[in-house]
């Protein structure tokens, strides 16, 4: 697959960066038109580099690069509007979202809709206390973009419409089945919460947040395979004590 030789002022976000050679950075960026791209920022680790401050995760950027291989050379970076201030849970969740994108998308696979979902979730993570619903919507859209979209508004086997007050079990790769029809090992979720996810109106109560999280965690674990997400360790209290839940993702 050939990639364009030169790209100018493409909107993008840095997902991750790490030292490369003596004074350069290897930047993993996410863009609407080119998906995830690997960019070498030459000399960006030097003390006088202007790029370094800009090449931070969660900051809207305009990126220009050249070169057609797997790794292109970053030739320009500009701020695209004011920086985004993520703090607390929002910041840690941002790392989770970035890890999901690095783990589950392939380089040079354009996902404009996913990019918009990413920008939307970052905006949501700035809103303290509303992080979880924003994450659930992003996870739903991520799965959809990857081709593993969840069936949320109909029952899996019968095709009947989901009833808000009924309890369902979500069977992976199939969909929701009424809880009284067995499948007790799968995540339980009420119809109203399935519908809220389907229509992206996540005004969940505490129970709804828990159910939606259980559903998404299970669905995403199936895509991740055996290696758990490292960023989950950042969530105090959740990480170590939840190791059982993470283990159950491995059987997917």
């Amino acid at each position, binding site marked *: 697959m050939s990639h364009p030789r030169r790209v100018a002022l493409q909107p993008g976000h840095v997902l991750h960066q790490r030292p490369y*050679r003596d004074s350069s950075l290897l930047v993993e960026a996410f863009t609407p038109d080119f998906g995830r791209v690997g960019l070498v920022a030459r000399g960006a680790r030097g003390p006088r580099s*202007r790029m370094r*401050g800009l090449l931070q*995760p969660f900051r809207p950027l305009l990126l220009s690069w050249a070169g057609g291989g797997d790794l292109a050379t970053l030739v320009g970076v500009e701020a695209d509007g*004011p920086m985004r201030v*993520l703090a607390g849970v929002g910041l840690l969740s941002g790392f989770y979202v970035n890890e999901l994108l690095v783990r589950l998308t392939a380089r040079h696979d354009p996902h404009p809709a996913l990019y918009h979902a990413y920008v939307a979730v970052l905006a949501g993570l700035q809103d303290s206390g509303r992080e979880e619903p924003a994450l659930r919507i992003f996870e739903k859209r991520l799965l959809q973009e990857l081709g593993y979209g969840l069936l949320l508004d109909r029952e899996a086997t019968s095709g009947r419409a989901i009833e808000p007050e009924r309890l369902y079990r979500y069977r992976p790769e199939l969909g929701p089945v009424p809880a009284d029809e067995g499948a007790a090992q799968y995540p339980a979720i009420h119809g109203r919460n399935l519908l809220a996810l389907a229509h992206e109106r996540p005004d969940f109560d505490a129970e709804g947040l828990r159910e939606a999280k259980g559903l998404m965690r299970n669905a995403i674990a199936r895509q991740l395979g055996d290696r758990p997400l*490292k960023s989950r360790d*950042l969530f105090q209290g959740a*990480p170590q004590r939840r190791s059982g839940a993470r283990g159950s993702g491995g059987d997917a």
Partner: protein
Amino acid sequence: MPHLPVVQRLIEALRCLPGVGPKSAQRMAYHLLERDRDGARRLARALDEAGERVRRCRLCRSLSEDELCEVCANARRDRSLLCVVETPADTQAIEQATGYRGLYFVLMGRLSPLDGIGPEELGLDRLGARLAEGEVRELILATNFTAEGEATAQYISTVAREHSVRVTRIAQGVPVGGELEYVDQDTLSHAFRGRRDL
């Protein structure tokens, strides 16, 4: 003519240094052998000695010759203040620039989930244990102002709060001699949000 096997081994060994490729390694090796045998012996002894004797300080995890580093062993330092930094070089910078008289905790990195570095890898359980001892009254977070440094500070602050320790973060703003017109917009935006009463 190929290198002698023993010279080849020296060249290979020198390549473990950052930024040293095959060419520079070869130049270094021949310089030491042809022009500076004394220097070569001194280097060998110094490397050997340092490799044997330098270890991690039991308290702050920084490099040390003894079980405790000089700072941690110093009885005159204020043991109720603990400053968290990412690297030993950061400790040096703070020592030289400020009159800080407390102790340090060196993370030897920062939280970076995508590089597989989580709280465990940074020894944060040991930091938690230290805070639980109750000697520390204030924890000063001096991690870098990168997204990862911020996340690290954020994570440690929740640990510290569990132990009811006061947490502070070093300030961020316009550099000395900086003119607002030329300061980058993100720094200025931080400085503006972090303004204080006079």
